[in-house]
């Protein structure tokens, strides 16, 4: 019996060594896990394919002030909903705790790492993804305004094999699309400005060309307007 157990353990180690640590699970819990793997944000983001799920990377890409970070806050709040923790890697030191809290993030279960170099970013993200302590690791590459930017989305290539075998999801926020890296991407593009009494009060962004979000310029709040298809159905 003990020999059979050891042989089974060896076989599992071999399979996991080849395909990743979480590829095998007991049949009874595999189905439950499939539901647990998805991170529910409670918005139209959940209806987009691929969504945010454990063991999967996702990039939110768009120019500045389109609402990427606010959407990432929603994702972080969703990851925390079941008691999970979030690691936010912030090389540009632009994380705003107030807007995160307004988006529903529990700051007591969010650790911010101000990694200064590309290697530090990779180290922090890899440590989070390899541990069982986090449901979501966010890498905010920051505004790409200068050629000396610390991290670009393409620099995160070493994380992809790690996230595949991780119980956590990886969310990357970037101004620019990946050039050499094949990573599922939601583009975030501003489609309209909201005005009131002649003053700009916010804007509407289209995520992955399907989901619409209204962002208030003051207060860092976002309102889910639903998917474009649903809106068209409602308006006839």
């Amino acid at each position: 019996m003990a020999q059979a157990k050891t042989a089974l353990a060896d076989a599992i180690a071999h399979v996991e060594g080849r395909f990743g640590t979480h590829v095998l699970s007991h049949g009874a819990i595999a189905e439950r896990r499939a539901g647990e793997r998805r991170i529910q944000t409670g918005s139209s983001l959940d209806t987009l394919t691929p969504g945010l799920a454990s063991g999967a990377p996702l990039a939110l890409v768009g120019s500045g002030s389109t609402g990427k970070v606010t959407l990432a806050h929603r994702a972080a709040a969703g990851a925390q909903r079941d008691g999970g923790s979030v690691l936010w890697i912030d090389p540009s030191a632009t994380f705003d705790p107030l807007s995160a809290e307004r988006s529903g993030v529990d700051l007591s279960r969010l650790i911010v790492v101000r990694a200064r170099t590309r290697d530090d970013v990779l180290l922090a993200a890899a440590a989070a993804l390899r541990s069982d302590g986090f449901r979501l690791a966010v890498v905010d590459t920051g505004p790409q305004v200068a050629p000396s930017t610390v991290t670009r989305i393409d620099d995160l290539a070493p994380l992809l094999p790690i996230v595949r075998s991780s119980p956590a999801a990886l969310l990357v926020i970037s101004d620019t699309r990946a050039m050499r890296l094949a990573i599922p991407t939601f583009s975030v593009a501003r489609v309209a400005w909201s005005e009131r009494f002649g003053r700009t009060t916010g804007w509407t962004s289209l995520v992955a060309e399907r989901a619409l979000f209204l962002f208030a310029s003051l207060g860092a709040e976002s309102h889910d307007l639903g998917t474009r298809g649903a809106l068209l159905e409602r308006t006839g």
Partner: protein
Amino acid sequence: MKAYLAIAVPERAPRARILAALCAMLPRVGVADDGSFVCDLRGTERLLGTPLRVARNAISACGASSGQLLAGGLGTTPFVARIAATRTAVGKVNEIPAGGERAFLDVLPLDVLPLDPKVIEELALLGVRRIGEFLALPRGSVTDRFGHAAAIAYALATGELVEDVRGVAPRRRIRAKRTWDDPVDSRERLIFALRAAADELAEALRHDGLAALRLRLVLEREELLPLRLERSLLPPSAQSAAIVRSLRWGLEELATLGLVTSAVLEITAVEPARGRQIGLFAPDGAHAEEAISVAQFLRTRLGASTVLQARVVDADPRLPERAAEWEEVVR
């Protein structure tokens, strides 16, 4: 019938072997404050024979395993048994029969009791030099004059206080070995291969109710010297994932791994497993302790002021930078 066997152990005796021999023979073996082993013999009579017979067998089993003759004491309390063991020749068992405890203790000097030397001196000035004289004093006066410690010594001598024999388990080697026909040359392959060994160790730890505090990995390598890696697990854990993570971080610090042909993973220090508080129905990634452990690691690698947690202190600040305060997750 209450019966305790105490075995006095000389300083240089192989204690682990003696403990293992006693544990193999008797159901409850503990270690007293003075370092002697105390065995609770209650309930063993029908199976193993009279206490005296059990004691003689135990002495001879300990002698065989340690190669040293030991002295034993039998009494109705652990305290009496311990004192009896120290007052007999090696290889013998000093039995104090029930009802004969006072006669045995009364003539002994006060220093066998757990009393402060100053109290013993003070008692000597009062003409109290033997346990019998000490026990002749009124109990209330002893407590009032000499305090709580003296009252405890008094109760021990009278048999009113019976020391608890807390069972201890002999140290067990918790180790796992893996050998590979094809040498392992990559770090990732080695870590995945070590997962099975870590699972084995975690199972052994859980079985014994222990958590690993330190672990050692020894890698045999082709054409290179064996590589020895010592890791501390903080917080101590019985989880396979924690063991693997610690090994991973240790291995990542190595510049070259070489061709690994075998690995021996051993838990070198343990402590009793403590429960940990987790949320009900917590999914994967809800382990706060793991998160703090990662934060500790990153703090070590990245330096101060890099691993932070924010707290909103003013939800409507006049200046944006005054909205939140930042503090280190791990100091």
